[in-house]
């Protein structure tokens, strides 16, 4: 299948290839939706992680809370946000982390009307920067 959406900058479109790669990572993340699993994770994060047959790279990205890395390794934002919620991070603060700005800078950008579309449609526009 051709992927006409791959030239959008700063974006991982969660397609079947990413879903396949990220399956166990995403299943780990969604498990944290349940209170008793959150408790198990808190008690012993390493053995909880071991229950999910993720790649070592994926496990390391979980340990590092490498939010963009998790997406690059097949995570989907609605799953990884469950890990963020487990950490007590709001969706807006998670977004700030992924864009590499402080929560205040990010919040201010949103209050000013958000990230503009101009200059943010194509990867080629980012390469020029």
């Amino acid at each position, binding site marked *: 299948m051709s992927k006409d959406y791959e030239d959008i900058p700063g974006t991982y479109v*969660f397609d079947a290839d990413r879903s396949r790669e990220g399956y166990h990572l995403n299943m780990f993340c969604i498990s944290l939706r349940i*209170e008793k699993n959150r408790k198990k994770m808190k008690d012993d994060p390493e053995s909880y992680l071991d229950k999910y047959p993720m790649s070592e790279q994926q496990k390391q990205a979980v340990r590092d809370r490498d939010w963009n890395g998790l997406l690059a390794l097949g995570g989907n934002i609605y799953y990884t*946000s469950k890990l963020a919620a487990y950490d007590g991070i709001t*969706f807006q603060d998670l977004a700030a982390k992924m864009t590499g700005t402080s929560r205040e800078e990010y919040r201010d950008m949103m209050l000013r009307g958000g990230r503009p579309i101009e200059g*943010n449609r194509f990867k080629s526009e980012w390469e020029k920067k």
Partner: protein
Amino acid sequence: MARVSAGVGCSHVPAIGVAMDTGITDQPYWEPVFDGFKFSRKWIKDKKPDVVFLVYNDHCTAFSAECIPTFALGCAAEFQPADEGWGARPVPVVKGHQKLASHIAQSVILDEFDLTIMNAMEVDHGLTVPMSVMFGEVDKQDEWPCLVIPLCVNVVQYPPPTGNRCYQLGKAIRRAIDSYPEDLNVMVFGTGGMSHQLQSERAGLINSQWDKQFLDMMTNDPVAASRISHLEYLRETGSEGIEMVMWLVMRGALDAEVNEVHRHYHVPASNTAVGHIILENKV
């Protein structure tokens, strides 16, 4: 006979639910978001829907990566608000209209739309936030003022159904409701959007001009809106802006010509552009 009286489009940002649940809706950040629903709450109280057919998406809550139905129709007697990782919202259980739901399922499946039937399903903020913004604060111990039939659409794993498919499904749902013998006032909600991207370095993208054109199209030219490509949604409105295909199910269930009775647009609520529209069928 059952009839579709109106359609409502609105965003379903989780932070809007949190703002209502924690009683901070009059703070300067939130006031302009909620001001746009003052009319709507009065309007819906006057119009008294018996049933809301609510089109939304699950955010990896009821459905894990194990099972990703493109269209899943809630046919259960009731739907519990889900714990999405920070505790369930303190809102009432959502009660379904089982007979109408199974009538719609049978009708649209024979109309060649192959739905998944859900006889047990938790519902997340995608469904409960639109209920809250339209009906206001309702205590967990009380009841929502109407029954709800949830239609859950996959917009998480690419590709979601096309805008045209959603629009055509809306038309099939309308045929189903029109052929149901009980005298019911049914409204259709299409939720999600508007422009927003929650992930990676482009997070925070907002495209107000595009959103406003989409609202115009909802009223005046739904066929044009139904032809918007997935690539255009992704590029122009952010990776999560593609949720707007769900508004087309709502629009498909309305008459070709409608009266726009209310519109509201505000940036931001958390990471998202809040859009809201009320469209009535001409009597």
